[in-house]
């Protein structure tokens, strides 16, 4: 197999498609460093003014901070719940296990619009004001499948004999979890946390329904789409956040592949 030569059309296809995938994003990026407000060819000139404006625009910064708050909270909750379900899934036998696991994974399959309106109904029925908290609750639900899959696959790679040994040596089960299991799954937990963070940070379909008066960044971005003159600045901020997301994804991948 290694002797086979790479067919040229396949290479051309790969790089052509990659180019097509980057083209729209690249053009958005050009838009954010273009000195003109309206986007038209040929470009007028280069400018970082939009990036400077971002740093002085309070509503934009507020929305970015709101997104960060929601993402930190929901990803922490989703990671803790993911650790709990993973340990139950891999280390316990009990009736209703399949049900719990199915329930944890199903948010991946239920369409976001359905979950969004169902949660909207819930919060209205109990007169709970929509806020960053309601967005965070929704994000925890949709991030749980990711954290569960990442952490449980790490736990599957270790057999339970380490824990049995610890308990034979007199450790209680909570101590065993704290001293053996938690350190063992820590890299996966960090990776799961970062993944959940990026899921929440970027999420729009649920947030549009559940955000109250304080919008998350995607919701704010959406509300600003009508005003053409603010677009370059919004895109500049989106580019900054994209870079932040990419850094997080790379760190998450590092932790996932970490062997300790």
């Amino acid at each position, binding site marked *: 197999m290694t002797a086979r030569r790479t067919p040229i059309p396949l290479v051309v296809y790969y790089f052509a498609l990659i180019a097509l995938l980057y083209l729209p*994003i690249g053009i*958005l990026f050009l838009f954010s460093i273009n000195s003109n407000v309206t986007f038209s060819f040929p470009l007028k000139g280069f400018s970082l003014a939009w990036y400077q404006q971002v740093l002085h625009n309070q509503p934009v910064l507020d929305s970015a901070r709101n997104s960060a708050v929601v993402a930190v909270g929901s990803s922490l909750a989703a990671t803790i719940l993911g650790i709990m379900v993973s340990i139950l899934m891999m280390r316990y036998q009990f009736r209703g296990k399949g049900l719990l696991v199915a329930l944890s994974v199903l948010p991946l399959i239920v369409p976001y*619009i*359905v979950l969004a309106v169902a949660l*909207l109904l819930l919060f209205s029925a109990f007169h709970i004001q929509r806020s960053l908290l309601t967005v965070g609750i*929704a994000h925890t639900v949709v991030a749980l499948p990711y954290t569960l899959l990442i952490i449980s696959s790490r736990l599957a790679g270790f057999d339970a004999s380490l824990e049995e040994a610890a308990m034979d040596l007199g450790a209680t089960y909570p101590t065993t979890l704290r001293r053996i299991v938690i350190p063992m799954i820590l890299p996966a937990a960090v990776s799961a946390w970062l993944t959940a963070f990026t899921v929440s940070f970027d999420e729009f379909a649920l947030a549009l329904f559940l955000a109250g008066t304080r919008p998350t960044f995607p919701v704010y971005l959406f509300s600003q789409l009508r005003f053409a003159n603010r677009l370059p600045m919004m895109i500049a901020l989106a580019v900054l956040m994209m870079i932040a997301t990419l850094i997080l994804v790379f760190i998450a991948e590092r932790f996932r592949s970490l062997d300790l």
Partner: protein
Amino acid sequence: MFDRRFTFWILFLPPLIWLAAFFLFPLLLMAAFSFRADTHGQLFSGWVLSFIQYANVWSGSGFLRLLGLSTLIALGVSLIVVLLSYPLAYFLAIYARRRLGFYLVLLLVPFWTSYLLRVMAWKFMLGSNGVINSVLLYLRIIQQPLEALLYNRTAVMLTLIYVWIPFAALPILAALQRIDPFIFEAAADLGARPLSQFLRITLPLSLPGVFAAFFMVFIPTVGEYVTPLLVGGSSGSLYGNIIQDFFTKAANWPLGSALSMIMLAVTFVFLLIATRLVKLRELLQ
């Protein structure tokens, strides 16, 4: 073993309560709401079992037609995405070798980019003073900007295909990597030509990944409302958008709930079909 059983409840109750309160119960509430006759009164009071919302959906102005159309569009998008991603995955699995990591990251960076940003990017590509029109005008190929590019279902499909291509390559790549390379040697030794090798060995063995990719694109696409909102306009709206309308502008929550229930049912039917074709675990990886 007392502390092990005690730990069990510590581990078991929080996720159970969380999922029951914020996932299962809201869906049940929505189900109950869809059997409500009107929008008057408090959410809980005056509830009488009624099928009128479902009757409204059945007889209403093209709800089911739109559902059918949205399903067809999602099927079409998934099919095109899988066809376009397969060669990518094949290239990565068979020929990328040591550069696999780099080529894979190159493919996935667009996918890790903000969803809203990527959809917006297509708005700028297709808009009447967008990139394609600007370039065509500048090159004097056209005199007037083309209006037909944006705000229709073709624009929605194009954008969705763009968004999902990198993602769909992953399960196909995983399936191709699981194939034992010795099978190819055996086939070659037995005189199989490259084409028949591909059609009779590689393709059938990679089918689980292909099905997984198909459903991983199909399921989120069928409920999509954000992309049509941005690039579809009023003539490009999908089933998800009418649900959104009934919960926002039109404010008819019982009818919206009935429409959501139907969407949920459709999703589960396709999930059942998917689990027949692939193991659930593969679908989730």
